[in-house]
């Protein structure tokens, strides 16, 4: 059973939240610098509010990894892009350009992320439970 922390609930009132958005006030040099900011190496195909996806989100954040989210639709038939990159229509899927790995199913992804980017020694002990999720963890 996967539980997801309600971390996306923003306790700030709307006006405060908005005043924290620096979209329009961010100083210019960031984008006029000679070197382009590189795209995050990890692309994360996900569905809004999908618990299996949130599990991957939490792992990416815990490991401090940069990622770019691509949101797709609830209907599997409208997920051609996921089928094209991963051969399946379920999410989550990640594409990691660092390693050339494309992977589906949250249990596999979490295990992969932890063993690739986590503390090496710690992951071995966890591996047994991380992949024990019988249904694979996908929607």
């Amino acid at each position: 059973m996967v539980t997801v922390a309600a971390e996306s609930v923003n306790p700030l009132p709307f006006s405060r939240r908005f005043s924290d958005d620096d979209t329009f006030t961010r100083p210019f040099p960031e984008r006029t610098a000679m070197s382009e900011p590189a795209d995050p190496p990890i692309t994360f195909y996900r569905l809004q509010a999908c618990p299996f996806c949130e599990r991957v989100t939490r792992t990416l954040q815990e490991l401090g990894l940069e990622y770019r989210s691509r949101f797709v639709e609830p209907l599997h038939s409208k997920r051609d892009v996921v089928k094209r990159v991963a051969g399946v229509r379920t999410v989550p899927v990640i594409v990691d350009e660092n390693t050339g790995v494309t992977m589906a199913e949250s249990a596999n992804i979490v295990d992969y992320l932890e063993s690739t980017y986590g503390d090496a020694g710690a992951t071995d002990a966890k591996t047994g439970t991380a992949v024990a999720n019988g249904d694979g963890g996908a929607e």
Partner: protein
Amino acid sequence: MLEFDVVELGEANHPEPGDEATEFTRPLVNDEFWEDRSLSELSREGDGPTILVFTPMLGSFVGKYVWDELRDRGWDDRAGRVVGVTISTPYAVKRFLEEEDCPFPFFSDPANAVAEAYGVDHELDDMEGISEPRPAFFALDSDLQVQGAWVAREWPEFPDYDDLEDELGLE
């Protein structure tokens, strides 16, 4: 004689040619997915100007007329990039792209803050709490400098598209 009201929208305090357009990041919606993208990032892709097109929400006849016209005039092949800005949600944009066979991606901005930053926001009468863009077009170079602009002054108002293409530098 038919009586009807074309409402004056008044002057818009929008960026003029030579001004620097405001940078922003919003989910960019195509026919398959959406992801956060910045305007400056887009403006450096492809050759030619980036055309930023504000319209009323998708589903309105004003939005439909504008996007039908741009599709029929083949703007997708005539600029570096043509991209819409709408208060419609990503889900609504995707449905619109599908149903209207629309080749353009859209920034989804339900809070209408981008239109506010560009001085083209418009409060809708008796749709409490909804503000949306008035029709507006901006041609931007790869440094986000405004090369051409057209903003509606009346509600509704449509551009003369031949003049607009000259103003925006489309070939």
